[in-house]
């Protein structure tokens, strides 16, 4: 290998080499950090909410009129919906996972409110939500109708039982097995004492960006006013048909209301994560553009170098270089330039990642991103220079004796 002479020759033509190496370094820095951000977004978007999203839809009902009694209307609605063909179950709730809208509260192990609390999302629902969302009950049991509490004013929670998500349970009782956590008592604001009667595997909070995303609790409590949020689970493949029929059926049942926001949970998820999804697309476009520009730079430098050295290449051929040896010469030359670029790029990538982690509360980048990025850029560099190098290998040795 001619690494020594190639390196020494490169040091005599520093400017072009340095510029391309810097371009590679910056591209690598942006590329790796952008891919990390994209992967983080994808990981976030792929987290399961715990609900059977493919078969769920939801809508709101806003009643009006003096004789509108929400408690009766909701009971009638749920009874009617649950009897519809294709429907598995239906519930009313104050919030829907991944919807972006809901309530949170602080949970303590002690009555004393000066003690630190664990933040959780709170779902105030009827007694059927666990089945309606098709949550995976790990320990304990769900609610019964007798557990339900009804309220018409804001204030302390009335329910005395709760089902919590596994993450919430483990956060509250880090050293206890799940089946022992069932039966434990926790305290809500106002000193309200509630007993944990069940633990579900996953029930995400409604806010995707929240740090308490995996911590949630369900209480059997319904707020009686004029606003109701319904969630319905159907048999697989029946969702869209039921959605199309339900509005007319409910308005026939009771016309003193407005039905709004009828949509599937999949659509809600898509809407909630739209910005994240768009950002991923934008970042991919930036990565592809940068890599393309860098490839063009590598190709440009290679073509310029080859055209400038046509006679030298011919001379090398005359002195005995075979075509593969000429090809290898330029591939090695590019590999050396790219190596300088990716080494500088590795330092910049790690530095930039530290800045992101420190200032923007991002998770730490996994160790393998940088070496994989280096490898990818070196491979891209080799592919980019393959064409010009093949062209160089085709230069005839007779060019060595030509005067121009």
């Amino acid at each position, binding site marked *: 290998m001619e690494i020594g002479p190639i390196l020494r020759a490169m040091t005599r033509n520093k400017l072009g080499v340095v510029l391309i190496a810097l371009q590679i370094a910056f591209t690598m820095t942006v590329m790796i950090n952008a891919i990390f951000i994209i992967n983080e977004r994808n990981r976030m978007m792929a987290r399961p909410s715990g609900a059977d999203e493919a078969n769920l839809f939801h809508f709101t009902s806003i009643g009006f009129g003096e004789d509108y009694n929400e408690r009766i209307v909701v009971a009638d609605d749920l009874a009617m919906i649950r009897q519809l063909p294709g429907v598995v179950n239906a519930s009313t709730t104050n919030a829907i996972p991944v919807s972006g809208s809901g309530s949170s509260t602080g949970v303590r192990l002690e009555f004393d409110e000066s003690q630190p609390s664990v933040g959780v999302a709170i779902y105030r629902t009827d007694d059927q939500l666990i089945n309606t969302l098709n949550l995976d009950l790990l320990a304990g049991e769900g609610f019964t109708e007798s557990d339900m509490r009804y309220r018409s004013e804001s204030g302390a929670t009335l329910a005395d039982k709760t089902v919590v998500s596994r993450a919430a349970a483990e956060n509250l009782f880090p050293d206890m097995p799940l089946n022992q956590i069932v039966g434990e008592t926790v305290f809500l604001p106002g000193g309200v004492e509630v007993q944990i009667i069940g633990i579900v595997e996953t029930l995400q909070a409604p806010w995707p960006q929240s740090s308490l995303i995996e911590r949630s609790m369900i209480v059997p409590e319904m707020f009686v006013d004029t606003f109701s949020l319904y969630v319905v689970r159907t048999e697989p493949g029946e969702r869209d048909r039921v959605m199309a029929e339900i509005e007319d059926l409910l308005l026939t049942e009771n016309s003193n209301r407005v039905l709004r926001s009828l949509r599937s949970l999949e659509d809600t998820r898509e809407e909630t994560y739209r910005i994240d999804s768009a950002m991923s697309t934008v970042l991919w476009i930036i990565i592809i553009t940068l890599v393309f520009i860098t490839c063009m730079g590598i190709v440009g430098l290679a073509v310029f170098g080859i055209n400038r050295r046509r006679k030298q290449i011919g001379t090398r*051929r005359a002195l005995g270089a075979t075509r593969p040896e000429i090809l290898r010469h330029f591939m090695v030359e590019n590999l050396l330039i790219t190596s300088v670029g990716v080494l500088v790029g590795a330092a910049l990538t790690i530095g930039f990642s530290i800045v992101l982690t420190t200032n923007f509360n991002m998770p730490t980048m996994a160790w393998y991103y940088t070496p994989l990025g280096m490898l990818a850029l070196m491979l891209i560099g080799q592919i980019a220079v393959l064409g010009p190098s093949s062209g160089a290998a085709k230069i005839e040795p007779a060019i060595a004796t030509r005067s121009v």
Partner: protein
Amino acid sequence: MLQMTDVCKVFRTELVETHALKNLSLTVNEGEFVTITGPSGCGKTTFLNIAGLLETMTSGEYLLDGVDVSQLSDYQRAKLRNQKIGFIFQSFNLMPDLNLFDNIDVPLRYRGMKASERKQRIDRALESVGLLARKKHLPAQLSGGQQQRVAIARALVGDPLFLLADEPTGNLDSNTAKGVMELLQEINQAGTTIIMVTHDQELANQSPRNIHILDGSISDAGAALRNQPTSAVDAVA
């Protein structure tokens, strides 16, 4: 050592067909110093390119050290050039970004020689042209004559079967040219065969054998036997 029989070279374009060499037959034996002269465009460089395996011939037979080169692949021709032929070019053709040591190292690297042997050979070659002390210099730091000496060292370093020199003094002043010519004669006297293309009839007259090419054919091989009784008779097309 070098035997060409009825060698033709035709350059074809859509409109024109140029016969650069016409039934050229020539034999050069080991130890000869042959100069090739002729007017511009007569086919001297084409002859040199074919003799040096830089170009392929259109027809004819060329035996180099007993090997029929017409059947060789590009790869085999490159290897044969590397092992058997030393080139000296009019404009030296040194790599401007490489120092003298690395320049002379070029053909040896393509031979896959070990570093220690390469170093030994390079130092010996540089010493033979009086430039060992300047082996870390770049070509641009040398005069034209010195650069051509480096090119000669590069041509000799692989112990080739013969040297092909294309106007080696063409870019040099007369004093320097004389020095280079004397060096080539010394090399020849040491046993290396030299075939030199030149415009300079005075230089040609200094060689034991001068071949004159005109319109792609050898027009005068008469001087061939003047000082070289061992050389074969050249066939005139």
